[in-house]
């Protein structure tokens, strides 16, 4: 049995890493807004954020394909700005994955921020902490379990992604050929040995990551400061 090609696995890890960082940056303010706003359009935004949970990945992928097309507005702007297309590229995958995994970051964060509530934030304000200061020194550390859950779920969900990648990214080695696509292809060409190897790696990897998270989560609350 030959040693499997690990490039797809590495690409998947990269994609999941970049997507998770992007989601942290975008998802945190969105989750905070959803947790604290009294705006009437809140349920509307909440429903929109949760859409990827119910839509089949092929439907999302289909819309992304249309949006990212170089002849469309978004796809065209991207091509003019960067010189590469959003379809069948790593950047396009990141963008699609971020939208696809958005609820996995936003929902745990929103729940965690709601659990923090107004009380500690008001206390922080009465102790001369500005809103931003209070957010980073009180809300974020108090919501750290939400962050942990959000990061892990987003990462894991992106690693396991298949349908959206297939629609938007295709199967370009080093660019869009992530582990799930590689396995799919190996099965198609009846190369079960390679499929076995990659699947086993993914299986062990997923279990290890999740085990680590649940172990960390079990421990007594981490003290900060």
């Amino acid at each position: 049995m030959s040693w499997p090609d690990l490039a797809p696995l590495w690409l998947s890890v990269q994609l999941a890493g970049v997507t998770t960082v992007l989601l942290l940056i975008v998802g945190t303010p969105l989750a905070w807004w959803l947790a604290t706003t009294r705006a009437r359009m809140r349920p509307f935004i909440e429903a929109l954020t949760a859409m990827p949970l119910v839509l089949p990945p092929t439907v999302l992928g289909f819309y992304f394909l249309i949006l990212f097309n170089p002849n469309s507005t978004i796809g065209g702007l991207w091509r003019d700005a960067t010189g590469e297309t959003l379809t069948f590229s790593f950047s396009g995958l990141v963008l699609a994955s971020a939208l696809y995994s958005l609820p996995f970051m936003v929902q745990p964060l929103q729940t965690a921020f709601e659990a923090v509530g107004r009380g500690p934030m008001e206390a922080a304000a009465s102790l001369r902490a500005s809103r931003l200061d209070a957010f980073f020194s009180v809300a974020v550390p108090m919501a750290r379990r939400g962050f942990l859950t959000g990061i892990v779920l987003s990462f894991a969900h992106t690693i396991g992604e298949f349908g959206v990648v297939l629609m938007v990214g295709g199967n370009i080695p080093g660019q869009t050929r992530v582990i799930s696509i590689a396995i799919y292809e190996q099965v198609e060409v009846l190369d079960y040995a390679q499929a076995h190897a990659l699947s086993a790696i993914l299986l062990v990897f997923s279990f290890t990551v999740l085990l680590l998270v649940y172990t960390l989560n079990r421990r007594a609350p981490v003290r900060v400061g």
Partner: protein
Amino acid sequence: MGLSVDIKLALKGFSLEVAHAFELGGITALFGASGAGKSLLLRVIAGLEDGAEGQVSFNDEPWQGRGRFVETAKRGVGYVFQDSRLFTHLDVAGNLRFAAKRSGSKAFDTVVKTLDLQPLLSRQVTALSGGEKQRVAIGRTLLSEPRLLLMDEPLAALDHARKTRLLPYIARLPEAFGLPVIYVTHSVEEVTRLADRMVVLANGQVLAGGGVAETLARLDIAEASGKFEAGSVVRAVVIAQNERFRLTEMLVAGQALSMPASVVKIGAELRLRIRARDVAIALRRPEGLSIRNVLRGQILELEQEAETAFAELLLDIGGGQQLRARITRASVAELEIVVGDSVFALVKSVSFDRRALPKG
């Protein structure tokens, strides 16, 4: 020093409408029954209710009004919440440092000492008792170096023993830290033990304000604040300790009054609280009666409560002091008393406030 408030805040089924100039210094009690709007008014003062319309200014410094709204963090108000609101991700020392870091306070050791926080410093806040939590919360607020300290029923969640232990710490705050305090409470006992001044709130409006003794002696407050336990506060001087009968003998407005012995120095000035329902009225100095405390007075006001069995009397007992009595309307009719009459007040029970009166 002063805090001027002129605000309106309409919520579902409740509206707060307060125009009042708070004369600050020492402890000012914000007093009223539950649901009177006390906490809400405190939140408006702190800038925690952005829906309030009107103006708030502190020592001529506008905090709110004319399109301006200074954020809580920039007002320099300290707020001690009923539920302490300690940060659970920090230990006790971390909570204290959170405040000290942002105010640049150097009073860490002083505050720790004043509130006896040393043994708690490395504890997790979730492992503290209710009383300990409030002591830490008070310390944390002091370390933010506020210019005005707002306390929202800080003892409400505590049992009687813990309350009694915490009261002296609070009483010391204005002097120890040169800090005016507004203290929300619905307890007359806390008012008489702590406050120098009081403002009475009922149904979202200010009913009365002023010195504690005068305000408590005013009849109209009793009706409006519902749960309010009518009574009066009188000043007394200790003149002797009766070892044989274990009584402390005092003079109130030149008249003798005694109560079960307490550890107080002869010559000490005290405040006594006498509940209106513990005062009975007689036309002549009674004989053959177990009640020993009898004060002579003149009726200043007599108010009949048409819908109840009771009437309330305000007596001038001399020396500028007043005493309030609550008796039945039937008794008023039988004794045929009217305003201006001289009567004897029979005091059944006196409760005692350990805090000496401020001089002057």
